[in-house]
């Protein structure tokens, strides 16, 4: 496949993203679809990193995952394994997966399976645990570990059975389209999509014959309580879409954005698997009562895959309800934000039409060139973690990638094409 200009290559990438057809097909143990995920291996969010460079919440997540897997009896044992390099770490992104916040994923955790039917790409993401003390924010007490076991033993299998009754799986684009019209942007707000998902799945769950009624009730109650359940589905869908786009292998469209608390990493289509990294920023936003910016952990998680496909902070205008929550003021600020984002994007996505934006499609195709040219970096809506493991989420806000990532990416790509500066 040859492209004459970078614009042509970018156009091909965009067409690939528009054509993507993500379907949620199953929930399975991570190790069954990720062969690299053997004993004593953990996945983490963001670009590659070492254990000792992880922030406290991410290290806490590692402890929790080890306890869940039973590789150590107690915290001390877990820390021992971690500090003596007994655990191998792999970025989620390297094994077709994405993970929220710390993104710590272990072999027996159930993962959502999203298939991009246009390209055949599969992507995985662990399920949302709800709010409060949760593993992704670094909590690892008994309650957290018990919930993880319940998710493995009940939630995962029940959802798997329910999804398998659908020949095609669940069309995620349909859920996106419905929920964006109901005020979701799929990063900070997923309540409409989560309910739309529940609406599809609840009748199936209640009709499953080989599941105890009590379990059905538990699962439905959990889904009804978990406003952000769809976020993880959206992330897996985003990963499946962008991995298909990455097969174009040319051009300057950003194909991944992620962070690990230490570094922010991006990929662009023309540079394949290479990460371009720079130190992360700390999110700006609003804090729950009793917390302040001083308590905030640095930016982490693979959830910026939602912004990569043009939703999340990029589609702020779709979700006027969250603008206050993330501290960006009112409706006009949201409008201003999304309008500004069009300056670094190439096109708009006809699949995600935003009513509050006069039915414009969501931003599509962040062009790393435009980011460098204008100095405007993508806006990411994000939860803010406490910098001490276990406290969980203490606020929400927005964060920007460091511009150096984009500068490095386009410079490397220019050099690859023969630029001698």
């Amino acid at each position: 496949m040859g492209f004459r200009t970078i614009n042509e290559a970018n156009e091909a990438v965009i067409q690939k993203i528009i054509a993507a057809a993500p379907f949620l097909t199953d929930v399975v143990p991570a190790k069954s679809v990720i062969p690299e995920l053997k004993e004593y291996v953990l996945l983490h969010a963001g670009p590659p990193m070492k254990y000792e460079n992880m922030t406290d919440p991410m290290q806490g997540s590692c402890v929790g995952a080890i306890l869940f897997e039973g590789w150590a009896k107690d915290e001390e044992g877990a820390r021992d394994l971690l500090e003596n390099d007994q655990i191998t770490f792999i970025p989620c992104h390297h094994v077709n997966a994405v993970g929220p916040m710390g993104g710590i994923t272990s072999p027996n955790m159930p993962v959502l399976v999203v298939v991009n039917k246009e390209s055949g790409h599969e992507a995985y993401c662990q399920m949302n645990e709800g709010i409060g003390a949760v593993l992704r924010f670094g909590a690892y007490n008994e309650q957290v570990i018990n919930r993880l076991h319940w998710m493995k033993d009940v939630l995962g299998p029940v959802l798997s059975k329910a999804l398998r009754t659908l020949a095609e799986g669940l069309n995620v684009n349909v859920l996106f389209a419905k929920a964006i019209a109901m005020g979701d942007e799929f990063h900070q707000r997923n309540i409409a999509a989560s309910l739309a998902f529940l609406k599809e799945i609840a009748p199936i769950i209640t009709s499953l014959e080989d599941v105890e009624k009590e379990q059905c009730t538990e699962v439905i109650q959990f889904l009804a309580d978990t406003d952000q359940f769809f976020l993880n589905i959206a992330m897996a869908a985003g990963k499946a879409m962008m991995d298909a786009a990455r097969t174009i292998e040319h051009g300057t469209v950003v194909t991944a954005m992620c962070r690990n608390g230490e570094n922010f990493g991006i990929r662009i289509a023309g540079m394949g698997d290479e990460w371009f990294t720079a130190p992360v920023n700390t999110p700006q936003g609003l804090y729950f009562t009793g917390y302040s910016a001083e308590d905030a952990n640095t930016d982490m998680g693979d959830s910026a895959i939602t912004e990569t496909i043009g939703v999340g902070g990029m589609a702020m205008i779709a979700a006027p309800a969250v603008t206050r929550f993330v501290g960006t003021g009112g409706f006009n600020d949201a409008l201003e934000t999304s309008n500004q984002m069009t300056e670094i994007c190439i096109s708009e996505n006809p699949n995600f039409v935003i009513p509050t934006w006069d039915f414009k499609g969501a931003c599509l195709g962040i062009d790393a060139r435009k980011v460098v040219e204008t100095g405007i970096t993508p806006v990411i809506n994000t939860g803010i973690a406490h910098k001490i493991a276990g406290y969980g989420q203490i606020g929400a806000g927005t964060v920007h990638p460091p511009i150096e990532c984009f500068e490095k990416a386009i410079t490397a790509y220019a050099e690859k094409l023969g630029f001698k500066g």
Partner: protein
Amino acid sequence: MLYTIIKENTYKDSIVLMLLSNKLSAIDGVSKVSIMMGTPANKDIFKSSGLGTDELEKAKPNDIVIVVDTDQEQKVDEVKEEVEIALKGESDSQNTSKGQEAHNWKRAMELANNPNLALISIPGQYAAMEAENALNEGLHVFMFSDNVSKEDEVKLKQKAHEKGLLVMGPDCGTALIHGVPLAFTNNVNEGDIGIVGASGTGIQEVTTIIDRYGKGVTNALGTGGRDLSTEVGAITMLDSIKALNQDPKVKVITVISKPPAEEVQRKVLNLLRNIDKPVVTLFLGDKPSYQEENIYHAYTLEEAAVVAVQLSNGDKPNFEPTTADVNVVLKESQVGIKGYYSGGTLASEAAMLVRDAFKDTMTEEQSDRYVLKTNTHEIIDLGDDVYTKGKPHPMIDPEKRIEMLEKSVNDPETAVIMIDNVIGNGGHEDMASELAPAIKRILDSARQDGRQLAVLATVVGTAQDIQGYEKQMEILKESGAIICKTNDQMVRTAIQLICGKVEQPIVDVQKFDYTKENLAVDDKVMSFINMKPSVINIGLKSFTEAVQNSGSECVQFNWRPIAGGDEKLMKVLQFLNYYEGGTI
């Protein structure tokens, strides 16, 4: 009870009527209301819906008819009031763009209301590129920015000429477009004198004198200082002269420039000889050696202004230079004239007159720090690059001038000190009060030293300028300065004080052959000078406010260099943006 209101021959957008209908229905005590045009068919509707009245019959198809059903008669007044408000109310303006700012061209063009002018004041190395973008968007260009290469200037002006657009500048400080002052410009009455000038303060001096004579200038087009160079070939000046010639409101055309390259001057004069309207030219620095029937060649700025006023009044040109009364006793040793100017053209005019007066007796030193330097006299343009590097212009910042004033008093040979105070848009808000204490100090200090000193000052401005022309003169006078009405008067007064005199040229009227020129002007230029401009301001934000204050529309474009001005990244971007390879 039914009440009928008929608004004869009244037309409103349907939406207004519908909103009104909703509003009236919502009034408490109104049980039914209907608003329609009074066509026969609609009268039937009124009747069949129980709203038929006798008055209704009087209504004609082009009348708005309102029938109200209410038990409370006083409600009818309320209804009438609402009707009046709705029918009188200004059409809903859709101008929500006000106050919004852009940071790229696309957004700026969206926000602006049919823009026709880009005002550019960003650093020179980027200005040419943005000027080209502006021309591509079909905008006329006013380039305040300097440090633009001559090659770029030629390229831009040729492109503009081909597209029927004007490029004013680079390094253009002054222009009036249909009465709207741009950048450093005075608030001048509108009137029938049209000006084209290659010099900012030259235009300011001439337009303000015209204003003070009670006449006016609607369009003063700046060309930038290099327009009359051989390379540029006066592209902007020639197009501007043609535009003023076509404008039926212009009675007299005035052209101001430094002496141009000879072949360019020939070109300009040939065009002017094609024109029937009376013309005044000033090639400042050249002493006119002839006059022409329809072209008055002036020697000084004041002369150009006064003659333009006389011609506009239909009078015969007649300029008598004047001097101010000075009551100062000088010692024999006091022979030096010092001029510390903020206006470059005013400094040049001073140098020209001093040179003329003492040409037989003085030897000049060559130095780029001085406009004129002899062993006794010095005239300095403090706005020159050598003085402004890294510092604000002396029209904004008094510091350098105060320093020069205080230094001059140490020289016992100094007889006269001349200073200008250029007010108007963009200038210091009260320069007179900044300079006054220094003037007072040097006068005192000379007196203590046993000599007197003449400090002459002239204010370039009009009564409409925010600083106040009279007030600025008053403050300077208070400090002991002698106020001169014009720069011409100030310099001649100084020369007279040390017993010199400048003769006005006495010349014959000559007749010249000329080649016929096409005087046609692109419509875009004509509509430009005949309307308040709708401006996109790229750079200094204060220019936006000034334009808006004069009642014109202006969108602020907060320009940033691409990639934050990082040269390597700019090259990377250029490489990628223009990359063409078969096999990437």
